[in-house]
């Protein structure tokens, strides 16, 4: 029985083994290091730790509040107007931050609200003082809202879409006012999902790295995640890094465990065309809704437009002839391709497991992976390798491996529905013909699910391409990716170069996201 299970699921078990090795190895290294010097471990918990832990929680709580509350009303507005010109554009805009590198968003927001930003003169006038810029808490929270408000909006909209159309008909027949409708229909739908959404957003904000690194201002505005990186790369204080990484890990796992108890709505499509006739907001409400949607759309689009504007001012054509830039582009493309191939290989192996138990565990485990931050895994391997080789030498391998597992939860989520449909359709036939393993993949899913697989590859590549986390930890002058080169140019105040690189990176990432969208659309239209 047991040997059967192993024989029939070799590839899936190998994939699980790889995941266990990569995460488990890092955690083991952290644990061993902590035990080896328990005094160093405990002395890490000083007032500095308390301050950054406090800041981590405070900025995450604030970011969550400011992301989730507006999202309730933006989602409601979008739901009240199921059909209007530009609605699909707004929805697509809401999906962009998912694939936009954090570094780019930070730069875009700085270009708008920084000390020398587009809005600075107006802000100086409005507050009657020279606008100080957004480094510190303000910038971090603003950037977190930029990423998470659209995410929360999309999740709330899904919850509202799941309300049966009959209920909107009843609301019309019973003559509900907008307020009663919100209280009796919209709010209960959103309430069922708001705790889960808020916890996910809180977790993302508490463990975000790049935004805090670029927008944080010195020790006043540092989070645990960034402190781990600083301890390893600047202070040479591995004990502190280990202590912080363990705290971060336990904290994230607890939040993830609580979040997993709350449901996030499954996508259900009720007929928009039917609903549109039931939604006839009166002009006052319609005006408020339109203002709200426009404000949200401008808030999301403006930083990206600022990147485009600044990038076009910089001489991109000259920039791409610099050897350092060419080498960074090639490195980035190579590492991102490898990471996305590895990620999709892991995902397909897990989804194709003969035993559905393995697949189910993989899908559930994906959420846990989200909470294990790349910096924590990176820190673990940094400490583990330290005595053996120069950790920086292992950089390419670790960047590929960690980026692959970072993208894995998203890719599993993208592929799972079509995979399940294909299995329901082909499992019995394949079993009766004795087609299994790679042959099965080549003959069935490899062809039938080519669209979703290519979309997943493109999406995973976009995520890896924009990542600054692991490369910041392991990168060196010998290994620069586009984001790390961009970060270095920022650090040396070559803002024209930075602007050009930012445009380049944004176009690459959003181009890949668009490609993924097109592939998925083509699939659903078939």
């Amino acid at each position, binding site marked *: 029985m047991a040997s059967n299970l192993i024989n029939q699921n070799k590839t899936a078990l190998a994939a699980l083994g790889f995941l266990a090795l990569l995460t488990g190895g890092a955690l083991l290294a952290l644990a061993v290091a902590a035990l080896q010097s328990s005094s160093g471990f405990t002395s890490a918990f000083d007032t500095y730790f308390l301050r950054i832990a406090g800041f981590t929680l405070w900025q995450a709580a604030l970011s969550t509040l400011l992301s989730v509350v507006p999202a309730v009303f933006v989602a409601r507005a979008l739901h009240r107007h199921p059909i209007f010109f530009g609605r699909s554009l707004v929805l697509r805009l809401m999906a962009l931050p998912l694939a936009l590198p954090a570094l780019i968003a930070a730069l875009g927001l700085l270009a708008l609200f920084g000390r020398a930003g587009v809005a600075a003169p107006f802000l100086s006038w409005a507050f009657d003082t020279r606008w100080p810029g957004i480094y510190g808490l303000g910038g971090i929270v603003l950037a977190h809202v930029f990423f998470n408000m659209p995410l929360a909006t999309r999740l709330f909209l899904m919850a509202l879409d799941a309300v049966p159309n*009959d209920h909107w008909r009843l609301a019309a*027949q*019973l003559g509900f006012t907008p307020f009663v409708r919100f209280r009796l*229909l919209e709010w*209960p739908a959103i309430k069922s999902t708001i705790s889960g959404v808020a916890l996910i957003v809180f977790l993302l904000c508490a463990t975000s790295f790049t935004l805090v690194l670029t927008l944080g201002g010195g020790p006043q505005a540092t989070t645990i995640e960034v402190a781990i990186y600083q301890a390893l790369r600047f202070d040479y204080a591995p004990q502190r890094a280990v202590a912080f990484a363990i705290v971060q890990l336990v904290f994230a796992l607890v939040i993830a465990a609580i979040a997993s108890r709350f449901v996030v709505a499954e996508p259900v499509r009720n007929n928009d065309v039917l609903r549109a006739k*039931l939604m006839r907001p009166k002009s006052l409400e319609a005006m408020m809704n339109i203002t709200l949607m426009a404000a949200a759309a401008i808030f999301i689009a403006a930083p990206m437009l600022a990147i485009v504007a600044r990038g076009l001012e910089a001489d991109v054509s000259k920039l791409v002839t610099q050897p350092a830039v060419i080498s960074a582009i090639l490195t980035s493309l190579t590492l991102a391709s490898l990471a996305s191939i590895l990620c999709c290989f892991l995902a397909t192996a897990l989804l194709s497991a003969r035993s559905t138990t393995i697949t189910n565990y993989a899908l559930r485990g994906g959420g846990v992976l989200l909470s294990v931050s790349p910096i924590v895994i990176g820190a673990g391997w940094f400490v583990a390798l330290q005595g053996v080789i120069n950790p920086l030498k292992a950089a390419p391998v670790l960047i590929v491996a960690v980026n692959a597992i970072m993208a894995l939860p998203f890719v599993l989520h993208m592929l799972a529905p079509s995979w399940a449909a294909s299995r329901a359709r082909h499992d019995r036939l394949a079993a009766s013909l004795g087609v299994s393993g790679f042959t099965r993949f080549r003959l069935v899913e490899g062809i039938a699910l080519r669209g979703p697989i290519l979309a997943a590859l493109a999406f995973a590549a976009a995520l890896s391409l924009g990542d600054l986390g692991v490369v910041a930890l392991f990168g060196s002058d010998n290994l620069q990716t586009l984001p790390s080169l961009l970060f270095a140019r920022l650090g040396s105040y070559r803002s024209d170069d930075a602007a050009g690189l930012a445009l380049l990176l944004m176009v690459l990432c959003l181009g890949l996201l668009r490609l993924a969208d097109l592939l998925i659309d083509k699939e659903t239209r078939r």
Partner: protein
Amino acid sequence: MKAVSLENVRFAYPGNEQMRFNFSVGAGERLAIMGASGSGKSTLLHLLAGFETPQSGSIISGNMDMTSVEPAARPVSILFQDNNLFGHLTVSQNIGLGIAPRLKFSKAENQAVEIALTKVGLTGLGKRLPYELSGGERQRAALARALLRDKPVLLLDEPFAALGPAMRVEMLDLVMQLQIEKNLTVIMVTHNPDDAEHFATRIGFVENGQLSATMPADALQQPPKGSALADYLGSKQNKT
């Protein structure tokens, strides 16, 4: 006297064939509407309730043209096959929505809800949540709300289709009893010829999005030879 009439009403979903309705129902009549799936039966009820707006033609109730009247202001109540109750509100609250959408009930309103509960045989179940009721009890609760709204026209969109045969007859009898008591006009969409025969005084048959005449319920016994109704009934006809 005519309770409701549709005069040259035309309607189409984008990209679909146009539907045409031209018929009337007398006050106190029980009309059963039959027809194949997708023939436009539910759309007909949605037009009457105001969830859809005709492209042309008018919908008249009594002396009132209600073609462009808001759903809430029309003299109709509707029961769906499902989703008639809000899952997070108690049965009493769900029923009370019929008279007080803000869920603040006066003493008299509370009493009215209790009376409605009793009328549909749900005495004492007001505090329960919908998921604690059986399918039949949920439809009784929806019926109680319709009673409380006290509109002269009741639209039934296959509300008993998911119930067993005995329960269906029981529910139809309850509706009939209330219909007679209040002299309601009932329009019921159904797939089931037995239900139509048991319940209706007249029947209408929708085919290709058209309904232009209704006939006495006896037509179910002997549908005109070669008619669409005869084709639809098929085996039932051979049985009798």
